[in-house]
């Protein structure tokens, strides 16, 4: 069946559609704010005249193409264009500062390709059983995984645990702004309907990282900044860099693939998990925070694999787990195709044609992105006093087009100032971002889980999946406490 699909996807018009899709997707990914949703939405009306398969190939191309470009602004100028590339800022931008932007971009593209293709292989062979497995994740499970995530990820940067914890708490608090999902009470909104919808995570991180960087550059003495001349050959990764990236790419791919099956913004969580894992097992711990290539390779692969595997619930259940998948679903529906358990049997050519086009499209993405690496990396040769205003413009534009809200620009600026202050005072913005990201999930998950489990925490801890994660969390917390206690006792003993 897959061969039939390949035959269909290799027709000239479909190849062209895939090319248009991935090109637009890459552009949408590179420009912060202009996400997949906006791009597909724009093209929906144009697609009416197209053949169904052609249109779907184009939409899917945008969908996975965008995952390739997403890391570009994170690496070059510290502006994450979407949740899934926040963590790429941490190492990627440090690499860029060391003149290794090209290497980071290239590794991100290669990782995206490998993981994206792995993801498609997964869809090809395991779609229906995996989709059903995803259903085992209910609210108690979302809550548990968010809690575990919070505990594991808080000290991502690994400098000062106390500071990281404080920042995480602040992030959690920021996450509570808005209407309470259970009782519809306004919290911290000060009567503003703008605040009632809550603070957009991506605006927060664009501010903390991107605007923070811009403000920091303004405040630093300009004479200190020297633009390093980068030779063209240096734009691409060295053999060592490639070697160090191979395993993180595969690990990230697997993490992303399985986490993508969990409803909700799992692509973002998977990047954090991959980062944390790579850091933990790295042979070069001293490099982390100063541009460790594994910290780019792993997360970037994870988010691509996640976006591929998010196609699984979409195609085999007809349920979009993310907003961009929702728009993809709209694209299907408007062409009279209802994805769901019956899709494979009722529309085999269409289904397999689409899958086959994803193999083809991923190759196109790679071919398209590798030459772009050089172009983007040479952008950094532009002196900072010219580059930073452009970055500011891109950030503001990106934040604006997200919701077309001027209020968001204010939020962006405030978080930019905060980001700068944090940088100066040695507080890491990453734990705050994680708190603000996981907070709302955690809160809603807990509310839902408490009702489902008849208000008893014990009921939740005896559910197989949720329980396993909760017990693990408990162990981790107890472990840390005991360790601290022993340390304290030892130091007391040493004193007396």
């Amino acid at each position, binding site marked *: 069946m897959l061969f039939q699909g390949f035959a269909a996807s290799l027709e000239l018009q479909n190849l062209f559609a895939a090319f248009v899709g991935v090109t637009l997707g890459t552009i949408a990914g590179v420009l912060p704010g202009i996400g997949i949703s906006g791009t597909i939405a724009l093209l929906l009306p144009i697609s009416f005249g197209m053949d169904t398969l052609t249109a779907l190939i184009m939409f899917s191309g945008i969908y996975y193409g965008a995952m390739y470009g997403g890391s570009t602004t994170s690496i070059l100028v510290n502006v994450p264009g979407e949740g899934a590339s926040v963590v790429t800022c941490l190492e990627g931008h440090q690499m860029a500062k060391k003149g290794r932007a090209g290497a980071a971009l290239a590794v991100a593209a290669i990782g995206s390709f490998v993981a994206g293709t792995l993801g498609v292989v997964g869809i090809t062979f395991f779609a229906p059983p995996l989709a059903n497995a995803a259903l085992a994740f209910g609210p108690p499970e979302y809550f548990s995984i968010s809690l575990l995530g919070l505990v594991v990820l808080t000290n991502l940067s690994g400098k000062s645990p106390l500071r990281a914890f404080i920042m995480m708490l602040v992030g959690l608090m920021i996450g509570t702004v808005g209407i309470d999902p259970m009782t519809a009470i306004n919290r911290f909104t000060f009567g503003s309907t703008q605040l*009632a919808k809550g603070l957009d995570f991506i605006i927060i991180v664009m501010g903390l990282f991107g605007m923070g960087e811009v403000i920091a550059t303004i405040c630093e003495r300009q004479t200190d900044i020297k633009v390093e001349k980068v030779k063209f050959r240096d734009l691409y990764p060295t053999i060592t860099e490639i070697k160090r990236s191979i395993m993180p790419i595969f690990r990230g791919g697997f993490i992303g693939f399985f986490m993508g099956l969990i*409803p909700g913004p799992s692509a973002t969580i998977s990047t954090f998990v991959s980062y944390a894992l790579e850091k933990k097992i790295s042979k070069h711990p001293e490099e982390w925070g100063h541009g460790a290539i594994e910290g780019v390779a792993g997360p970037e692969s994870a988010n691509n694999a996640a976006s591929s595997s998010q196609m699984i619930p979409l195609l085999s259940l007809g*349920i*979009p787990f993310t907003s961009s998948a929702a728009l993809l679903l709209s694209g299907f529906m408007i062409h009279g195709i209802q994805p769901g358990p019956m899709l494979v049997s009722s529309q085999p050519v269409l289904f397999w044609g689409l899958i086959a086009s994803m193999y083809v499209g991923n190759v196109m993405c790679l071919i398209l992105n590798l030459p772009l690496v050089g172009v983007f990396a040479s952008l950094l040769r532009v002196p900072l006093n010219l580059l930073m205003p452009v970055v500011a413009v891109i950030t503001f534009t990106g934040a604006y087009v997200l*919701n077309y809200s001027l209020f968001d620009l204010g939020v962006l600026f405030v978080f930019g100032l905060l980001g700068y202050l944090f940088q100066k005072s040695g507080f890491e913005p990453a734990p705050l971002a994680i708190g603000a990201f996981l907070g709302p999930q955690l809160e809603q998950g807990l509310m839902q889980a408490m009702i489902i489990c008849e208000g008893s925490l014990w009921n939740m801890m005896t559910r197989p999946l949720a329980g396993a994660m909760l017990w693990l969390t408990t162990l981790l917390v107890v472990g840390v406490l005991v360790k601290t206690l022993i340390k304290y006792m030892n130091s007391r003993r040493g004193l007396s």
Partner: protein
Amino acid sequence: MKAGRLVATIGSVLCALIIVTGCGSSTPKTAEKPKYPTKPINIIVPYAPGGSSDMVARALAKVSVKYLGQPMVIINKPGAAAQIGLNELGDSKPDGYTIGIANSGMVLQPLVGQTKYNYATDLDGVAMVGHIPFVLAVRTDAPFKTIEEFINYAKANPGKIKYGHTGVGNTAHTAPEQLALLAGVKMEPIPYDGGAPLITSLLGGHIQAIMNNPVDLQAQVKANKIRVLAVAGETRIDDPLYKDVPTFKEKGYNVIAILWQGFGAPKGIPQETLKVLRDGFEKMATDPETVQAMKALGLVPKFMNGQEFGAYWVTEQNSLKKTLDETGILKMIKEQKK
């Protein structure tokens, strides 16, 4: 170095272009109006792209050039149970260049919260384009196969049935509460932040029931994963998939929950402009292509002109208020707000 500058220049020009075009679409300039419309019309969709409202707006936008002579630009302003987008609609200039989706969700918020407007009275109707009754859906392998069995089960196991909804006081919440009240049973509500997680949770067996629009359930019903027990409309749904499902009314429970989709505009649009707009929408809504698209979305195409539609909002709001009072939801919310 030169090359670098060139790239920078090109980059900034591009950025400037994006800014100019990006902002241009959302801040309409004052146009001298010899003949409305002379530029694209913005449609505010107070939901994220991909939802049913969004799709309806896009389906109409597709034929707008044919009937209004100008394209329509969809602007998604999701958030705060559609209040963000609706307030923006209310705030916008009544020049006929900004209109928005007006659907059943909008009559609720003014009743339960402090909204900036009472959308039902502070907006003008443009056209209703379609509607669909909500249905009660359960998993196929649930211990109840009919609405009678469902209610008996709920009676025998108070609080055992947990249903999901997508926001306090919205149809997915009020309709089951109305049923619970009429049938004298107790069911526990669980909030979700959208239709997709809601259905996923039902499929996974984490919740026992939902009241949802049947469109989103089509794939699952066809795959025999979800069973629809009853329809909250005046009549059954024509679709062959649902034509054997009884209405609540037939079974003696007066549960009516209908999702309607249409368009509204800020009050104060000049009469002649409003007329052009309303006439244009009548043609768009009844265009065979739109009708087809709405059917594909699972909506029953039903046109209602702007004036009637505006009046319909008020009747709907009154009957919703009655339901909220009777089910105690309004009281609950008011008490918590104290």
